C-alpha cells in the first residue's frame, strides 16, 4: 500500500501530508506513531530523545475528538498524565494550562456531550498537548467541522505551534488548510502511496487571516493542487471496475 517512503522530519517543523483518499496517509501516520506496523517490509524510525519527565513523546489527534464520555473536560485532558503514572490531582492541575491555551478554561467541568464539535476538537488538542510532546500527529482533525470553525482552529493550531515549536505532521485532504498551516507540504500519490512532491511553502512565518486571499497563498496552493491533480486524481483504468 505504501512504497519506499523516506521521510525525514526536521525537529520543530510543521509538515502537511496531502493525498487522495485511501492513499495511505493515515496508515503512514499510524506507522510513525507506532500504533501499527507494516505487514510487509519494514519501518525504521530514528528515535526521539528519551525524556525524563512523565508523558509521551508522541501525541496523536484522531479524526474524531475521541474523548471519554464519562470524563469531564478537565479529566479527559488529564488522562494521558494519569496513564503515565502522575497522580490524579497533579494531573488535573497540569491539564489546566493546555485547556487555557485552547480557550476552554470556562468549561472544565462540562462533559463531552455538552460541547460543540469544534470545542470537542479543542479538548482533543489540549489532551495531545498536555504531555508536551516532541512530535504531534494529527489525522484530518478538522475534516468534520464547518469551514469557518475549521479556519479558526487552523489559526489557533498555528499559533500554538509557533509558541512551542514541536514537530507536527498534519494529514489533510484540504489544499488551503495545508498551505495555511504548514512550512512544508508533502503530496502523496494514489495507491501504492509514494511521496510525489516535497515542497517548502514560501509563506511568512506569521500567518494572518488576510493571507488566505493573497496572491502568494494562491500560488502556493496551486503548486499543491497541480501535484495532487497529476498523481491523485481518478485512475481512469479503474473506472467502471468494482472497488
Amino acid at each position, binding site marked *: 500500500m505504501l512504497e519506499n517512503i523516506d521521510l525525514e522530519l526536521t525537529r520543530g517543523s510543521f509538515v502537511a501530508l496531502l493525498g487522495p483518499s485511501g492513499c495511505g496517509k493515515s496508515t503512514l501516520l499510524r506507522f510513525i*506513531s*507506532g*500504533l501499527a506496523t507494516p505487514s510487509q517490509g519494514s519501518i525504521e524510525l530514528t528515535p526521539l530523545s528519551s525524556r525524563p519527565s512523565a508523558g*509521551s513523546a*508522541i*501525541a*496523536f489527534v*484522531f479524526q*474524531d475528538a*475521541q474523548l*471519554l*464520555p*464519562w470524563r469531564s473536560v478537565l479529566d479527559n485532558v488529564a*488522562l*494521558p498524565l*494519569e*496513564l*503515565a503514572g502522575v497522580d490524579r490531582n497533579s494531573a488535573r492541575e497540569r491539564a489546566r494550562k493546555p485547556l487555557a491555551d485552547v480557550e476552554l478554561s470556562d468549561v472544565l467541568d462540562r*462533559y*463531552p*456531550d455538552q460541547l460543540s464539535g469544534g470545542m470537542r476538537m479543542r479538548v482533543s488538542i489540549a489532551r495531545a498537548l498536555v*504531555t508536551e510532546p516532541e512530535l504531534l500527529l494529527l489525522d484530518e482533525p478538522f475534516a468534520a467541522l464547518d469551514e469557518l470553525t475549521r479556519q479558526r482552529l487552523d489559526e489557533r493550531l498555528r499559533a500554538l505551534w509557533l509558541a512551542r515549536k514541536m514537530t507536527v505532521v498534519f494529514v489533510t485532504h484540504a489544499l488551503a488548510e495545508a498551505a495555511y498551516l504548514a512550512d512544508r507540504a508533502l503530496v502523496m500519490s494514489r495507491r501504492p502511496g509514494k511521496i510525489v512532491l516535497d515542497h517548502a511553502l514560501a509563506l511568512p512565518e506569521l500567518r494572518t487571516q488576510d493571507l488566505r486571499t493573497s496572491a502568494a497563498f494562491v500560488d502556493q496552493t496551486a503548486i499543491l493542487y497541480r501535484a495532487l491533480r497529476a498523481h491523485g486524481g481518478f485512475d481512469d483504468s479503474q473506472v467502471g471496475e468494482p472497488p
Partner: protein
Amino acid sequence: MSDRAAETAWSKVAPPLFTLVCAVALWESAVRALHVPAFLVPPPSAVLSAAWAERASLAASLLTTAEGALSGFLLSVVLGSLVGLIFSLSRWLERGLYPYALFLQTVPIVAVAPLLVLWFGPGLRAVSVSAFIVSVFPIIANTLAGLRSVDPRLDDLFRLYGAKLGDTVLKLRLPSAVPSMATGFKVASGLAVIGAIVGEFVAGFSEGNAGLGITVLAAYRQLRTDLLFAAVLLASLLGLSLFALVSGLSSLLLRRLRAEW
C-alpha cells in the same frame, strides 16, 4: 414535577392500569357467569381474600424466596462479572471455558435441583445456588460482549500512552462495558426469581420458613387454588420488583457515566 411531566407520567401509567382493571373485571364476571368451580379458576375476589387471610405466612414466604433469589443474583453479579472480565483478558481461556459456561444456560435446572440438595443440603443454600445457575450466564455473556465492544480508536489512544493493563481495564473497558453489563443484570434479575422458585420446589423444605415455591406446592395438594394464584402473583411481583430495582440502579449509573443507550 411540572404539569407536562405529570401528564407524561400519567400517559404511561394509565393504559396498563386500564388494561388491568378491564381484565380483572372480565375475569370476575366470566367466572361467576359460567359457574366455573373455584378449584379450577377462582375469581379475583377470592384470590384477594385468600391472600389477605394468609397474609402473615405469605409475607414470610415472600421474604424467604426473596432472600434466596437476591443472594443467588448477587452471587451471579459478582462471579459472572469476574468470569466475563477474565474471559475478556484471554482468548485462550475464553475458548477453553466459554462452551462450559454455556452449559449453565442449557442445563435443565429442574433436573439438577436434586443434586443441589445432595451437595448443599435442603434450604437457602441450595435455593441460592439454583438461582445463581439460572442467572449467571446472561451476566457472563453481556459482560464479555461489553468489554469487547470498546471503540478501537480509544484503545489506540490508551496504547499510544502506554497504558498499563489495569488502567485500560478500569478507565476504559469497564466504563465502556457498563451499558451491556446493565442489560445482563436486568435479564439475570428476573431469572434469579425463577431459579429460586424452582430450587424451592425441590430443596425448599427445611427448618424455618418455607418459600413461595413451597406455598405453591402445598396449595396445589390441598386444591387451594385461590392461595396458589396468590403465591404465583406474589412471585411475579417479586421478579418485577427486583427487575425494577436493578433497572433503576443501572439507569442511575448510566446517567453518571453519560452512556448512550
